[in-house]
């Protein structure tokens, strides 16, 4: 069975500055993987490459066996994305935002309509369906973005620091919701974060990224056992100037 996501020797530069260097890791099908790294680690650059906003010129990225460079359409069909920066159209209603996403994926109405209903119900957005996205608070907007990312039934969900700007209860609710999607639908999830308390040490897989390189990969328990320290201490080491675990 091919991996949900395979990143092999991927590099990227902004002019002379190297943002990613020889990044390799794999995400298995189903299951929750946290991509942990401090600000500036290269997480958003990596997401831009995986979502093909940038061309991947060094290395190779494949989704469920589809090479992103050679068959981008097939690869992107497998992918749902929630970016760090909100991407909702604030002048459209919740329902219209979902319909627009369904259209962009070429879903005919007979398929799109029940899926919109399903996602609105699953993410507890039914009472807000006619509200403009502008009228929603941060937590609800994030839920709409997740609903939108799931409208085409992707098999891999990428979330780039989705809890930025949310208060603690909204953060917890969002993490619980995504974990439950993962369990119920067998969805593979890659959750980028710099917040260690968003990681479930007992169940999550972990990819540790810092200064554009992958420093560790595996189950959170194995990574911590190898590092010989707790998650908080590991992250502190990452954020210390010049230090790497």
């Amino acid at each position, binding site marked *: 069975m091919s991996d949900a996501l395979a990143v092999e020797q991927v590099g990227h530069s902004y002019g002379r500055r190297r943002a990613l260097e020889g990044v390799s890791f794999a995400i298995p099908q189903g299951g929750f993987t946290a991509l942990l790294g401090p600000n500036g680690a290269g997480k958003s650059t990596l997401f831009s490459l995986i979502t*093909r906003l940038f061309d991947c010129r060094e290395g190779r990225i494949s989704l469920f066996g589809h090479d992103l460079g050679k068959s981008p*359409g097939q690869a992107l069909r497998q992918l749902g994305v929630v970016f760090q920066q909100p991407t*909702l159209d604030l002048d459209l209603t919740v329902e219209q935002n979902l319909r627009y996403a369904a259209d962009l994926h*070429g879903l005919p109405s007979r398929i799109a309509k029940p899926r919109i209903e399903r996602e609105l119900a699953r993410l507890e957005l039914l009472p807000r369906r006619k509200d403009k996205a502008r009228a929603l608070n941060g937590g609800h907007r994030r839920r709409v973005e997740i609903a939108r990312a799931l409208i085409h039934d992707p098999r891999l969900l990428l979330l780039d620091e989705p809890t930025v700007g949310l208060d603690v209860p909204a953060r917890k609710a969002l993490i619980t919701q995504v974990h439950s999607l993962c369990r119920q639908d067998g969805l593979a999830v890659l959750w980028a974060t710099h917040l260690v308390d968003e990681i479930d040490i007992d169940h999550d897989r972990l990819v540790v990224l810092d200064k554009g390189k992958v420093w560790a990969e595996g189950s959170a328990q194995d990574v911590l056992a190898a590092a010989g320290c707790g998650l908080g201490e590991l992250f502190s080491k990452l954020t210390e100037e010049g230090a790497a675990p």
Partner: protein
Amino acid sequence: MSWLICLKGIIWREMLRFYHQRSRLIGALVRPLMWLLVFATGFRAALGVAIAPPYDTYIPYAVYVLPGLVGMVQLFNAMQSSLSMVYDREMGSMRALLLSPLPRWYLIVCKLLAGVAVSIVQAYAFLGVAYLFGDDAPPAGYLSVLPALLLNGVMLGALGLLLSSLIRQLENFAGVMNFVVFPLFFLSTALYPIWKIQEGSEILAQICQFNPFTYGVEMIRFALYGQIDGLSVLVVSGAGALFLVAAVLGYSPSKGLTRLKAG
């Protein structure tokens, strides 16, 4: 089928957005109406417009300037669409579009056609208001002008897309008005016939003849009178194709479209 659904979705979203921004329609109408009702009235006595195709008699200045103002509506709409592309890119909402599994060139073409659809609605709204003020064209002209509006809209929309792919920040957009929109409009036959410009300056007349917007305006002018100006159709089609190819290249993933900061 999925390609058509995607096109329909992008046009629907653009129309909905246009509907929500009612001030955009008002703005689009007020600008050319000021020219038509104030400028053209003032110049009616000063400017005599002799017989020249497609007109078969002497015409008042307001009749001459009407196609130019239709072109102006489309020109400003193209720049508005371009501005909203830059805004979408800065705000991040363009990423939702680019995550579609359909090819990027197709998404850009859909975006272009959506902008053209809005520009045609605006152009007809302007023609309708001008009609109410007594500045009309032959009745059949309102139908025969449609293909010309489509072609001119594609050329100007493609130019707008190209500009939006080159402009990195919203603040830089003011320069587009000074260095693109005004020269395109004023150095064309939108306000004066080419022979009139030639009387004043041979060089300006030469520049006007190299301006693709001149041919867009002439194409609309002839189409409003049920005629086809072959040269204009050729130039507008060629320029539109050129701008579109350049815009598609400008939005290629290899260009690093969203200019994200590393994070």
